[in-house]
């Protein structure tokens, strides 16, 4: 079993919602409230040592509710393994979650991208601006209800 699962189940037992093993990959779904503490623990615990954040993927699960989610892909150079940390955001209208820029600097642009394309707000982000779309753009193109063409 992945060390991350063990760590979260002992230290953040109330936060873990679901653990899925699929095609040799570990996906842990957690509640969004303490995401920063969870990320810090995963980074600093010597057993997990996820010093590296591969990517942050913003998700839109429409028509499901909760509609929005954020997926963190972490890698440990020490253990040479990965884990996907998933969260579902409560608010379907104005989704928001704590920023993890203070945990991994690379999260800065990933979070800006998720904000730009999906409209997920990252609380505490130092510079939450649009990144790929023009600054005056209206709407968030990767949302499922955003049309592919005809804008």
């Amino acid at each position, binding site marked *: 079993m992945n060390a991350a699962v063990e760590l979260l189940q002992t230290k953040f037992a109330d936060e873990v919602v679901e653990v899925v093993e*699929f*095609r040799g*990959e570990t*996906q842990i779904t957690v509640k969004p409230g303490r995401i920063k503490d969870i990320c810090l623990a995963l980074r600093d615990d010597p057993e997990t040592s996820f*010093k*590296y*954040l*591969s*990517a942050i*993927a913003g*998700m*839109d699960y429409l028509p499901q509710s909760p509609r929005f989610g954020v*997926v963190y*892909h972490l890698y440990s*150079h020490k253990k*040479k393994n*990965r884990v*996907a940390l998933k969260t579902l955001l409560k608010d379907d209208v104005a989704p928001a979650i704590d920023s993890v820029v203070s945990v*991994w*600097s*690379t999260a*800065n*642009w990933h979070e800006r*991208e998720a904000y730009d*394309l999906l409209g997920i707000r990252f609380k505490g982000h130092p510079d939450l601006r*649009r*990144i*790929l*779309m*023009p600054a005056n753009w209206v709407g968030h*193109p*990767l949302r499922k209800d*955003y049309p*592919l063409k005809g804008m």
Partner: protein
Amino acid sequence: MVHKAILSTVNCQLLTENWKLETGFKMDITQPMPRTETMLLNLGPQHPSTHGVLRVLLELDGELIVSADPDIGYLHRGIEKLCEYRTLHKCMPLMNRLDYLAGEQNNFGFCLAVEKLLGVEVPKRAQYIRVMIAEFTRIASHLFWLGTHGHDLGAMTPLFYAFREREKIMDLCEMVSGARMFPLYFRIGGLAADLPEGFMRAAGDFVKSFPRRWKDYDTLLTQNEIWKERTVGVGVMNAEEALDWGWSGPMARGSGVDWDLRRDNPYSSYEEFDFEVPLGKNGDTYDRYLVRMQEMLQANRIVEQALKKIEETEPGDIKAKDPKVSLPPKDKVYTDIAALINHFLIIQDGIRPPQGEVYQCIEAPKGEMGFYLVSDGGPQAFRLKIRGPSFVVLAATDKLCRGRLLSDLIAVIGTMDIVLADVDR
């Protein structure tokens, strides 16, 4: 303001005293002060040294960079969105156009992600051929980097030498697929076709001659005083910072991070190949140059081994055996009704992977190229998140050049080896 005043005064020294930067300079407050305002300078989006449509908003104090803010998105084509509307096979041409200097590497990662989701086994021959093409692409991508990076910093000659070999690799791509930049040779479950006649010999010739050609570039730059002046100590990142900023591939290895996905999390039978992972020490532009130079030789070694392994396998065994995934052979499509139906279904209806999600990454020439593929059981991806190495590396621009000279920014952009198509997607 005092801080800025000192910077400007140092700058005056720079201009008057033969471009030498004086340290420990004291301000003479009896003299009239020079203007201490900073200047905003817009570099790009159409500037030859920004390697594509990158705009950098610079705040300058004379020639010193106070802050650098890269503005991206000029090449945003919404590939992630487009992939949600087309079958997985039809995403392949879009993948080619991510990091277009290493087109086939992107398809490699995407195919592996889909195959992982499907649980399909690719025959050994196809795996070896993929490795060979991927390593050829790595050499081509590094050659392009070498030529343009040198050119940016005033070394014109390496460009012509590097492009000479790159041209040969493009010819090899043309042999297998008919296209040069975007071969589109890989398919989900295997390859589009087997290697054509004469390919093995042409590839073998390249592999034999490349180390000798490599010496040409090495002679031109490695001990070149001007090259060292421009690259040593420029854009420094230590190993810990490199990980914090999400660096991977040669960028991280230049800082001494001993990590290569081909070795540590092998895919497509990379574990059967013997190669070294070159590492840098200082994490500066020069060390990254050395790392990429060595990587080219290592890639050549892998190609050499792959050619041997390909010869040991059965010709024609290039597709997964699952008829729901692999297209039937073309001649069968014309003569056999079952094959025709099969072909039609895969093209029109698409392949339907099971519900689930995978993250598959490969060691692309520029670093970790990741594909997060979420499927709801339909023929299209529910969501495809592409993690491009260039996007991540570019985020650290400000950190690398703050307080440095403007000309160092050009070296930094060159060493990052970014492709804006990969940054913007």
